[in-house]
């Protein structure tokens, strides 16, 4: 029997990355000088799990690194070390290094060993430094392995008798022994007396027991901690040796710590083959790193999601109801002859409700709280504000607001960009703030909430706001706005979304490369969202992002052109109106424009763009659906508006390819397929009509 431990890699990595997030947010919230022991405990536990896991899976580099980190945290937890800002900084760096090492192990790539080593050194340095101070205060409490505590006490004699079922709990005695050896010099002796005859041997039963002589300088709590996880699965006795001199003498100690480590492993080896190999792999980390990492890499290919158990229960209840409805409808078969239409109708209504609820619940499985994305910002703000020499407080509101996992992942980078912008351009240096009559502390607010079928994310700051004059001057300089042109303030604000427009005087490390807001806006557009900006010069800016909760479903307006039904996403519709002929203007006898409240918008005759036969070519007989796409408005001429409904978006690219002017397809209630229009693409297509690809006939026989 052999267990492929690679199958657990993915879970390990997921848990480790979660642990890192816990550590990071915990460290940031840690109050300098006045640590909350519960908070440090949480950080310590996260580090401890990572260490344990990486040790089990043979990621020695990670477990060694975490060990130093853990030691440091342990001292903080015990109160023997002060929580200094410097220590927190180094710990945060260590979290970064760990993240890098974990990603490298997951993807089978290499991490920057030099950088990690540097952080490792800094940790060690801190450990020594802090230790020097703390021994001065309270020498007896020092727990670091390097501790030179008074050696007055006798050695520990530990009797470790695992219960036979120990292996089934997933614990490895060799690991325990190794941890003990790491605490101080140890002598380990295996007790094989329980071993049965070969015929009765069960590979999954633990027959061995150990007696360990451990350096007396190690604290009792440290030893107890090693056994913490297996307390219930083994008999452990811990005594000072001078109390039981005889035992120590009669025990024939195995030569030294290193061979002691191997000895039990070798004895255990034949029966528990897989465990031995797991141990072996750990030792052969360097030699076999390559292929093991490859195994880890394959696990990262799939992505998984953690679902709240409540959501699953809801789903199970709904399926139960669905089954009841189905059997209720099934009964109509048996009642031969008479059909009770009322009951049938009632059943169908129930079925409809069940289906809708089921759909909503299934969708909810993909929903995650936005805190997954917001959690990284305290760190970002902390690092950036110290780098920029600004005092910034981050307020997070509504981090439990849920949205689709895909949207969540795609929104992360734009959000980082916007928050960086707020810090770099928005919040002023403390001196400027005081001069402007504000508090030296700037505030950046990240807020999320649901509004209808949308999620609204706001990034606000109480900084300088946008300077409309500066913006306008810059735009004129770049030729984006004519010299005499006068723009209303909101139009001026929109300029920052223009490609290549950056108002930062100098390109800074943080932002201001001129690729920014336009990319952000495009990303948001791709997600089917809109981005708005509110800014008051001198008082700050707020950027509001409105996104659909999910990418899988959209609210659509069904329109008809000839025999074809199309779907226009409701988010892109501004209004729908009956065209009046006196408002239709033509330019150069070709382009048609429609005057809509002082604005001229192009008319896109859908039947022309898509080459279908319409019911009518007369504008008055159809309708204009005014849409907005990529900042442009246009009136789409259709024959008729049909109903509105939620549609499930299906990709055309799965089996075909991307089609211009079409963002996807969906299946209507009657089973037919309808195309979903892409307003922006349609306007572009109207300007540069595509030639029907009939020119590929040379391919045909």
């Amino acid at each position, binding site marked *: 029997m052999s267990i492929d431990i690679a199958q657990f890699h993915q879970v390990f990595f997921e848990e480790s990355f979660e642990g890192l997030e816990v550590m990071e947010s915990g460290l940031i919230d840690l109050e300098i000088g006045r640590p909350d022991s519960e908070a440090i405990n949480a950080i310590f536990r996260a580090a401890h799990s990572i260490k344990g896991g990486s040790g089990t899976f043979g990621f020695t580099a990670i477990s060694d690194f975490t060990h130093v980190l853990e030691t440091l945290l342990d001292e903080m937890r015990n109160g023997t070390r002060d929580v200094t800002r410097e220590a927190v900084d180094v710990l945060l760096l260590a979290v970064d290094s760990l993240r890098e090492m974990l990603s490298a192990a997951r993807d089978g790539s290499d991490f920057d060993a030099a950088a990690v080593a540097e952080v490792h050194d800094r940790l060690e340095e801190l450990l020594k430094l802090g230790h020097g101070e703390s021994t001065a205060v309270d020498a007896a409490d020092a727990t670091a392995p390097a501790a030179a505590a008074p050696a007055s006490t006798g050695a520990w004699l530990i009797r470790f008798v695992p219960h036979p079922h120990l292996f089934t709990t997933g614990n490895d005695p060799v690991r325990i022994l190794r941890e003990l050896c790491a605490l101080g010099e140890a002598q380990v002796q295996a007790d094989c007396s329980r071993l049965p005859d070969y015929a009765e041997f069960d590979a999954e039963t633990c027959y061995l027991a150990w007696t360990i002589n451990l350096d007396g300088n190690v604290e009792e709590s440290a030893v107890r901690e090693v056994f913490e996880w297996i307390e219930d699965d083994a008999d452990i006795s811990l005594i000072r040796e001078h109390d039981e001199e005889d035992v120590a003498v009669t025990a024939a100690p195995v030569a030294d710590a290193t061979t002691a480590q191997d000895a039990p492993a070798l004895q255990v080896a034949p029966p528990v083959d897989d465990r031995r190999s797991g141990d072996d792999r750990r030792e052969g980390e360097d030699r076999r790193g390559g292929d093991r990492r490859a195994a880890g890499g394959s696990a990262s290919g799939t992505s998984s999601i953690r679902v709240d158990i409540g959501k699953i229960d809801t789903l199970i209840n709904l399926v139960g109801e669905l089954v009841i409805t189905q059997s209720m409808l099934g009964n109509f078969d048996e009642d031969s002859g008479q059909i009770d239409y009322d009951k049938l109708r009632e059943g169908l209504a129930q079925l409809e409700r069940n289906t809708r609820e089921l759909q909503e619940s299934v969708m909810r499985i993909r929903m995650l709280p936005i805190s997954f994305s917001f959690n990284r910002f305290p760190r970002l703000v902390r690092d950036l504000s110290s780098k920029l020499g600004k005092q910034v407080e981050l307020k997070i509101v509504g981090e439990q607001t849920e949205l689709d996992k895909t949207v969540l992942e795609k929104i992360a980078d734009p959000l980082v960009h916007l928050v960086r912008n707020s810090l770099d351009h928005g919040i002023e240096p403390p001196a400027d703030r005081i001069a402007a009559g504000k508090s030296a502390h700037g505030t950046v607010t990240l807020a999320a909430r649901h509004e209808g079928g949308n999620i609204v994310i706001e990034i606000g700051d109480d900084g300088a706001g946008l300077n409309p004059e500066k913006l306008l001057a810059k735009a004129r300089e770049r030729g984006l706005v004519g010299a005499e042109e006068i723009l209303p303030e909101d139009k001026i604000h929109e300029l920052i979304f223009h490609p290549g427009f950056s108002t930062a005087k100098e390109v800074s490390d943080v932002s201001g490369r001129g690729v920014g807001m336009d990319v952000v806006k495009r990303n948001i557009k791709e997600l089917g969202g809109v981005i708005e900006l509110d800014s008051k010069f001198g008082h700050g800016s707020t950027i509001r992002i409105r996104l659909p909760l999910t990418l899988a479903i959209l609210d659509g307006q069904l329109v008809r052109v000839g025999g074809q039904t199309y779907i226009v996403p409701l988010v892109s519709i501004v209004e729908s109106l009956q065209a009046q002929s006196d408002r239709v203007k033509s330019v150069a006898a070709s382009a048609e424009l429609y005057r809509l409240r002082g604005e001229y918008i192009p008319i896109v005759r859908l039947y022309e763009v898509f080459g279908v036969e319409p019911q009518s070519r007369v504008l008055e007989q159809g309708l204009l659906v005014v849409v907005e796409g990529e900042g442009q408005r246009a009136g789409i001429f259709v024959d008729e508006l049909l109903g509105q409904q939620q549609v499930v978006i*299906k990709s055309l690219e799965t089996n075909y390819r991307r*089609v211009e002017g079409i963002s996807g*397809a969906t299946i209507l209630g009657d089973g037919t*397929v309808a195309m979903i229009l892409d307003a922006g693409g349609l306007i572009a297509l109207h300007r540069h009509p595509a030639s*029907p690809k009939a020119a590929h006939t040379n*391919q045909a026989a």
Partner: protein
Amino acid sequence: MEASATQQPIEMGIGNEAGNADQYLTFLLNGEEYGVDILRVQEIKGWMPTTKIPNTPEYIRGVMNLRGAIVPIIDLRLRFNMPAIEYTATTVVIVLKVEHEAGERTIGFVVDAVSDVYNVTAEQFNPAPDFGEHAHTDFIRALATVDDKMVILLDIDQLVGRDAAMHAASQH
């Protein structure tokens, strides 16, 4: 799927010495008989009206809903520049799995009628002659003689892969 599960040799003319014979599903197109690897056939269904995809060549008839999947439908007659005909009761859509550089795709092909399933061994293969200017033969795997009839065996991956209309729009 049912078709691909049928692994036993089916009783037929020459060349049913099981061994290394491949099975081909054949269909009729303008009186000619064409064959495709039966393992690629996902299902065969009757013609149903499709939804047109704008700005595509005539031979792409549109897309169809195949149990929730959006599947493009290609009219092979039009694809091969054969005269178009009214669809009849025997007109069927053969849904095939096609290997494509972007992964496996499911595509439906409209043909006049399904004909038969043959076991074809390598000895029955005749390489496709070079038609020179008259026809492109990349997508013809071989010509096979079965029951004194000529069957044109198609390489469906080539047929789709070489088709510019199946790739992302180049002008943008």
